[in-house]
């Protein structure tokens, strides 16, 4: 493809987020976030709910406007790209959403094939074989004619994953791969993600709050809390980090703040 994919083949950091600040209304969600993701690694962005991890992911996907800062994908700042350039860029990116985001009026196969029919002029036979290959990869052979409504939660995630890799993207984003899945299915999915990294050399960004899964698959982990990055490093680095908030997250400890009795009373009895 004569687009971004052929330039900057050898850049080390395929994703670079620099000084990203965002707001929802007046509320600042992300405070000056910096992340570098190396080519071919699995980067897990971890954090509790409300930490801003999903917002960060959506920024990387170009779904939100940043207040300031830049996001470089494969060497290009996507905050500066035109709509058309962004569509081009997205052919290098596969995304599996938390709920699958499958189109309910289409069969499994049609869902998976959609990007191919939209962006390529491949022969129907080639597309069919590719679709079945991807279904084999996610262990769903023979499911192509089912509708999404006939699938279980784990299957939906796997179909979403198959759809996100149908174009063999260089960057794969996965939102909460193990949320709502039983441990066995979740472990299978983790295994699959690692195989994709090894076989296709994909760079994979995963957003999750599941510690077990994160430690299993991550090459590096970024811990996000209240819109700030606490630490970025290997699994060991994170486990050994002595930051209190990181440890709280790792030990699943609820935040305990010092209670100021006066302020607490005020909060409870405030009018309006």
């Amino acid at each position, binding site marked *: 493809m004569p687009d971004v994919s052929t330039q900057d083949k050898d850049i080390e950091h395929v994703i670079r987020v620099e000084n990203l600040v965002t707001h929802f209304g007046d509320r600042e969600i992300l405070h000056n976030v910096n992340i570098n993701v190396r080519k071919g690694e699995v980067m897990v962005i971890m954090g509790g709910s409300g930490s801003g991890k999903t917002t960060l992911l959506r920024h990387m996907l170009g779904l939100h406007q940043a207040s300031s800062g830049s996001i470089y994908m494969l060497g290009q700042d996507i905050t500066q790209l035109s709509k058309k350039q962004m569509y081009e860029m997205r052919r290098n990116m596969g995304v599996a959403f938390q709920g699958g985001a499958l189109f309910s009026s*289409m069969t499994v196969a049609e869902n998976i094939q*959609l990007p191919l*029919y939209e962006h390529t002029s491949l022969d129907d036979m080639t597309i069919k074989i590719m679709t079945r290959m991807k279904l084999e990869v996610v262990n769903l052979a023979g499911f192509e004619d089912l509708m999404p409504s006939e699938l279980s939660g784990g299957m939906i995630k796997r179909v979403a994953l198959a759809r996100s890799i149908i174009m063999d993207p260089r960057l794969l984003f996965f939102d909460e791969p193990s949320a709502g899945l039983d441990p066995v299915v979740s472990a299978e999915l983790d295994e699959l993600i690692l195989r994709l990294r090894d076989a296709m050399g994909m760079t994979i960004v995963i957003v999750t709050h599941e510690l077990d899964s994160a430690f299993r698959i991550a090459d590096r982990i970024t811990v996000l809390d209240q819109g700030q990055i606490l630490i970025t490093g290997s699994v060991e680095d994170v486990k050994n980090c002595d930051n209190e908030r990181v440890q709280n997250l790792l030990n699943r400890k609820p935040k305990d703040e010092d209670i100021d009795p006066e302020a607490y009373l005020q909060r409870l009895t405030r009018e309006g």
Partner: protein
Amino acid sequence: MSVKRITPNIELMVGLFVILGIVTASYLSVVLGETNLFKQPGYEVIARFSSSTGLKEGAALEIAGVKVGSVKTISLDREDYESIVVLNIEHDIQLTDDSIASIRTAGIIGDRFIKLTPGGSDIMLEHGDEISETESSIVIEELISKYIFESKSKD
């Protein structure tokens, strides 16, 4: 999107819908809108009236109660202040040159139309000819005032 599955059912239903739609649309335009798709164009003759009050363009032209054409245009003759009405008559209706054109009303509040009464002459009207015998609109208000005026003058 070529990916979506189409059951024949959808195509059949859409086909039926489109056919029904087109049939009804053509009924409206051919029968009611009088689109001259298949009809040959008619010919035009002129009729002068001293008054064409209430007559509108598009009003019907009848012989013995059967519609044979319509009023095409109505305009004023600026010299002798008469109303010039151009009539469009169906091509297969032959009119003698002594036919009488009179403006009539359907019912009391009904539309004005032109009633044609054929005469006995041998000469037929052709495109662009003029009907010389005409009767103008009957205006009810004038009739009434005339009646009142006349009955007063008798006294």
